[in-house]
């Protein structure tokens, strides 16, 4: 039985880089007016809208939004930077700096995307 299926052409929209909410792990949401000083660790994903000073080590994804200012060493599966991040960033699968993103520090990632307008001062190392 034949049925028609519209093919997409195989191009991935940019949005696919955003972390998909996983049903197993939740997402921590740190609002715009929240300041955290200390370390954040865990299996979940974290979205930061406010200020954070300290290290972040996650099994999940880290999304630093436009209003966020994060200082510290960061490590996550996928790191998205739309705000300001100062420190060393290490992503296990990919790292993306948006046009509003500012990164001061060294980054280590196997895959990198940098939007036009992003600011990055540091060294980049890509693992093979």
């Amino acid at each position, binding site marked *: 039985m034949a049925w028609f299926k519209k093919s997409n052409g195989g191009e991935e929209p940019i949005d696919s880089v955003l972390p998909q909410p996983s049903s197993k792990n939740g997402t921590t949401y740190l609002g715009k007016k929240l300041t955290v000083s*200390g370390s954040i660790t865990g299996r*979940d994903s974290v979205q930061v809208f406010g200020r954070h000073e300290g290290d972040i080590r996650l099994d999940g994804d880290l999304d630093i939004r436009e209003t966020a200012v994060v200082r510290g060493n960061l490590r996550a599966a996928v790191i998205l930077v739309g705000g300001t991040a100062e420190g060393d960033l290490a992503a296990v699968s990919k790292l993306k700096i948006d046009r509003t993103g500012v990164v001061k520090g060294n980054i280590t990632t196997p895959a990198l995307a940098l939007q036009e307008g992003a600011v990055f001062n540091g060294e980049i190392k890509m693992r093979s």
Partner: protein
Amino acid sequence: MEVATSGASMSLVSENVRIEGELGGEENILINGRVLGSIKLNGDIVVGQSGVVEADIEGNTIVIQGTVKGNVTARNHLEIQATGKMIGDITAKSIDIKEGSTFEGRSRMIKPGRTEPSPAVPPTTPQTPAATAENPVTAGSKGRII
């Protein structure tokens, strides 16, 4: 300047996340994970059922459904729900401790109209009663009425 009211914006510490340090700011927060350190917010705080907080907590309205080890100060209302376990001292303007909850500690009320809790130890006897002739038992009284 927007006023942070409960329900307006709610931060969330999810279940598999652990924060060691200090949380501050003007946010409401729901804690389903672990927090160690101190929490001092101008907002409402809910410690969810899976939440474990080992910290001193200061907030406006505080609802405890999980475990809290530390001193809790609620500027408005403190509620320890049936699944809640509160170990430490509480200070609040109004409290509601539900059946089934665990609470080990001291409770102090903030009197409405005051911003600080009333002193824990009420003043006992007045230090200097008026030294009148009728009262022979005062320190420094000169004579005794026989």
